C-alpha cells in the first residue's frame, strides 16, 4: 500500500478526518524515518485538514521526531522505578561505549540515545526500548550484548525485523 492508501485506511476508523492525524503521522514516520515539514504538509493534504493542526501534533507528542534519528533509537527509561534500579549507571556506560551524550546520535548514524519517561515495564527495571521492542532487567553485560546484536543486524535487517533478534521483554 502507498502511504496515502495506508493513511486513508486508518482514517476509516473515525467519523472525523482530524482524528486520523495521529495515526497518519505514525504511518508517515515509519515511511520517512522522521517528520520534516514537507511530510507534514503531505499528511495535511491527504487528510484535507489544516496543516497547522498536523504541525501541532507532530511537536506535542514525544514519539514523533521532527528531526532525523539513528537507525536504532535507544530509549532508556530513567523514571523512578528504573532509577531505583540504577539506570543512571547504564546511561553513563552507553554514553561511554557509543561516545555520545544523552540525546545524541553516533557519527555512523546507527544509534540515537535518549532517556525517556516510564515505559510501563517497571517489573523488569531497568528497561530500554529499541525500535518496537522492550529489553528489561538490564545490566552492563546485557547492554553490551544487545548493542552487539543490533550492530550485527545492520545490513541484514532493519527496525521491523529486530523482534527476531531480541524477543520482547527479554
Amino acid at each position, binding site marked *: 500500500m502507498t502511504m496515502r492508501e495506508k493513511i486513508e485506511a486508518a482514517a476509516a476508523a473515525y467519523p472525523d478526518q482530524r482524528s486520523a492525524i495521529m495515526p497518519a503521522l505514525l504511518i508517515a514516520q515509519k515511511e520517512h524515518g522522521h517528520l520534516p515539514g514537507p511530510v507534514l504538509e503531505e499528511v495535511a493534504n491527504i487528510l484535507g485538514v489544516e496543516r*497547522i493542526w498536523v504541525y501541532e501534533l507532530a*511537536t506535542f507528542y514525544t514519539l514523533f521526531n521532527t528531526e532525523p534519528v539513528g537507525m536504532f533509537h535507544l530509549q532508556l527509561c530513567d523514571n523512578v522505578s528504573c532509577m531505583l534500579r540504577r539506570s543512571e549507571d547504564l546511561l553513563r556506560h552507553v554514553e561511554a561505549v557509543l561516545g555520545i551524550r544523552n540525546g545524541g546520535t553516533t557519527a555512523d548514524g546507527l544509534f540515537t540515545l535518549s532517556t525517556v519517561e516510564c515505559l510501563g515495564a517497571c517489573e523488569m527495571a531497568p528497561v530500554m526500548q529499541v525500535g518496537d521492542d522492550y529489553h528489561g532487567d538490564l545490566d552492563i553485560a546485557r547492554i553490551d550484548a544487545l548493542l552487539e546484536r543490533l550492530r550485527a543486524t545492520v545490513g541484514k535487517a532493519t527496525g521491523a525485523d529486530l523482534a527476531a533478534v531480541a524477543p520482547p521483554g527479554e
Partner: protein
Amino acid sequence: MPVSLRGTKEEFREEAVVSVTINDQTLEVEAGSTVLQAAERLGIEIPTFCYLKRLPALASCRMCLVEIEGQRRLQPSCATQVTDGMVVRTNTPLIDETRSSMLDMLLANHPLDCPICDKGGECELQDLVMAYGPRKSRFHDIKRVFHSEDIRLSPVIIMNVNRCIQCQRCVRMCEEVVGAVALGTVEKGMDTAVTGFEGSLASCDQCGNCVEVCPVGALMSFPYRYKARPWDLVETDTVCPHCGTGCQLTVGARKGEFMRVRSKWEHGVNRETLCVRGRFGLDFIESRDRIKRPMIRRDGALAPVSWDEAGDFLRRRLSAVEGKAVGGLASPRLPNEVLYQFQKLMRTVFRSNNVDCSSRWPTSLDVLGPLVAGFYTRGPLEEVIGNDCVLVIGGNVTDENPVTEYLLRDAARRRQTGLLILSARPCRLDADANAVFRVPPGGEAASLGAVVARVMGPASPPLPGVDFADVATTGAQAATTNRGGSDRLAAALLEGRSVTVLVSIDLLRSPERRAILEQLNNLLQVLRALGKGPAMQFLFDRANQLGAWDMGVLPAALPGLSPVADHAVRESLEGAWAAEIPSEPGADFDAMLDICDRGEMGALYVVGSDPLITYPDRQFVKRALGAADLLIVQDAFLTDTAGLADVVLPAAGYGEESGTFTNNEGRMQKVSKFREPVFEARGNLEIFDFVAALRSHALQPSAQSEIFGEIAQLVPAYQGLTQDRLGADGAFTKATPTAPAGEFLAPPPAPSATDRLMLVTGNCLFHNGYLSERSAILNTVADDPYVEMGEQDAAQLGLLNGDQVVVRSAQGELTVQLKINRDFPKSLVFVPENYRTLRLNSLMLRGEYPCPVEVQKAHEAFEIAPVTGPEARPEIFTP
C-alpha cells in the same frame, strides 16, 4: 458549573433568572451567566488573562479563581455558571494570595524587558502585577529563553515567545473568530509556543487580531515596532475608510505622523477585531502620490499652480461651457456632509441632477428605491444576524466585508444561526454554512427566482398581494436552474422562524441588476407574507455607500432617497435651500459618459473617484473623459483619471477633515480629523465653496457641523441625530420600512448553460480599491496580481498553480499569475478589480458581465512581472 458552549437557541432565549451573592452583595442575573459576568455587573473586578468575551471560556490562566461556598477548590469565575443561591467571595486573603502567586509564577520566566517592549505602558501583565502581584519575587533561578532574536512571522507580525503567557487568546481568535486557522501551538508544557506552520505566518490573513488580543508584548505589529511609547501617541477614535462594515478604530499619531491603528474593544460593530485593511491599511494617507498643489492643463500637460491661478483658469473654462451639460461623480468613501454638499452644489449651482456616486455600475434606483425603503433594516448587525436563518447573497463576504464575516461565523458556530449562501464565488464562510447554492456566474436572478418559487411551493398559504399565476411561471423558469441548491435553501428558509437576508452590492455589476433586485424584492415579500419578518441589509464594499444614497448623490433621487420627480419633496427642499432644483431626473454616470462621448458634456466634476480604472471598457471611458470640454478632478491622490483632467484640485485625505459615515447597519459614526490637510490640500467642503464662489454663489450652510444639522433636519432617516449624541458607538439612522406594492415580478431565464470561461471580479482580502492600493504596508502583504480558477478548468487547459497566464477577452488581455482554487466551480474565473496596473476594465464591455474569456499559458515572451505597490504609477506623467 462551567458554561456549556453548545447552548441551543432555546437556551439563549431562556429568560429565567437566578440570584447570586458576591462579597455580600446579592443580585439577580439571567441563568447561564458566569460568576465573572455577575461580578462585572456588581462592579466587582476580577483579574483575567485567558478570558475574552467573544471566545468560549478556556479557564487556563487561573487568575480569576474565586471562593464558592460548598466547593472544595477555588473555581474559575470565567467558566463557572451561577446557580441559584450561590455564595461567592473574591476578597479573601486566600484569593489575594492565589492571585499573587499566579502572577509570581508568570513573572518567574518572563523576561521583564519592559523598557524595550512595545507593549510597555499598555500591558495587561504589567497592570495586573501592579494591582495584584507580589512586590518582590522569590524566584532567583535562571529564566527560560526560547530565542534571543524575535521571530518575524510575517511582514506585519513579529513574535517574542519569551514574553508569552499562554492565554491562547491569539490562537483561539485566529481559529474561532477569523477562521484562518493559521496560528497554532507547538510543543507542550514549558516548551509550549505559539507560532504558524513551520514557524511562519506568511500565508495568513495578516489581520493582526492576534496582535490586538495579546495581553503582553509577545505578538507585535512589525510596522509599529519601536515607533513610539503609547503615552507619546495622540489617539483619535474614528471609523475605517475601507469597507461598509464600518469598523471603529483608534488611530495613533505622533506629531501629526500616522503611527498605528488599534481596535476599540468595547465599541463598534467590530469590538476588538479588525481586518488587515483596517489594521494595517491606513498608511495610504502617507502615499507618495498625494497631490501637493492645484494643477491646470497647459499645452497638453498638467502644471502645478496656486489656488488663485487655478481659480481664474476654472472660472474662464466654466463660463466657456455655459449652457452645456454638466455632470458630477463623487466617491461613496466621502463623508456624508461632503456628499450632501456636493449634490447640493451640482443641483443648485450647476442646476443639474446629473450626479452619481458609483464609478463601477449604474444604480437602478427605480427598483432599488422601493427595496431600500421597503426592507432595509437599520439596526445592529449583531441583532440582525441573531435570526434563525441568515441568507447571504452574492459576492464573497470573507474578502469584501471580513469583520461582518467574523460575526456571521460566530452566529453560525455559537448562536445556532442557520447560515445559507447563494453566490457564484466561493468563500471561506461556505464551510460554516448549512447550505450553499453555488450559482453560475450571471445566474443570480434566475437562481433567486427558483428559490422564491420553492419557498412559495404548494404547501405555503395564499399570500396577500402575490399573484399565483406569476408564481407558476416563476417555478417553470426556476426549473431550469440548479434544483438541489434552491430546494435546500428554500427548505431552510421555510424552517427558520425569522430570516435575515444580506446582499452583496457586488450584484449590481450585472446587466441583470434590475432583475436581481426584483427577485430579491419577491423573496422578501414572500418571507414577509410568511411572517418571517425578514431583515435585510446590503454588504457594501465602500465605507459610506449607504450614506451616499441617503444624501441623494443619485440622478433620480434627492436626499432621503425620494424621487426627484416627486414635486412635494422637491418643493420643500427648494424652500430649505432657497434654490431651484431641476425637476427632471438626471443622467447616471453611464449616461454621463455617453453625453461626454457625444461631445455634449461641458464640464464633468469628479470628486475622490477614479472611474478610468474602475468603469468597464477602459478604452471607451478614456475617450469619453477626454471628450468632456472640462474635466475637473478633486482628489487627495493623483489618480489615473486626474491624469486626464484639465483642472486638478488637491483635497484633504482621510483623517484630514471630520464628518460622518453611515455604515451597512445604517449606523452613523464620526470620522475624525487627526491632522491638518498636507501640502496645499484643502477640505472638500472648502473647495466646494471655492468652486461655488467662482459661479458667484455661496453654499449655505458650509461648515461641516452646520451641514450635519441640516441633514438631521431634512433627511427623514437622520432626523433628530446630533453630533454629540453619536457617541462612542455612533447612532442608528431610522427608517420604518414601508411595504412596497405587492406586485410579483417573474425572473429572467437562467443563462443558457455554457462551458465558456466566465470572468468575474470583485475585491480581494487585502485590497478594496484605490485607497488600499496606496498602502505601502498592504502592498507588502497582498499577493501579486492573480487570476483564480478551479482545478478542473486549469487541468483541461494544462495550467499549473503559479503559471503566468494570459486572460483574453474580445476587448483586451492581461497577463497574471494563476492561483488554482479547489473550491472554484467549473467555468468561473476571478481577477480582483484592485490592481491598477492590470487595467482589468480594459477587458470588460459596458452592459456585459460576467465577461467571457479565454485563459492560456503566457508565451515566455509575454511574461512580464506585474508591477505593484507604491511604485505602481498611473499611465500619465507626474508633476
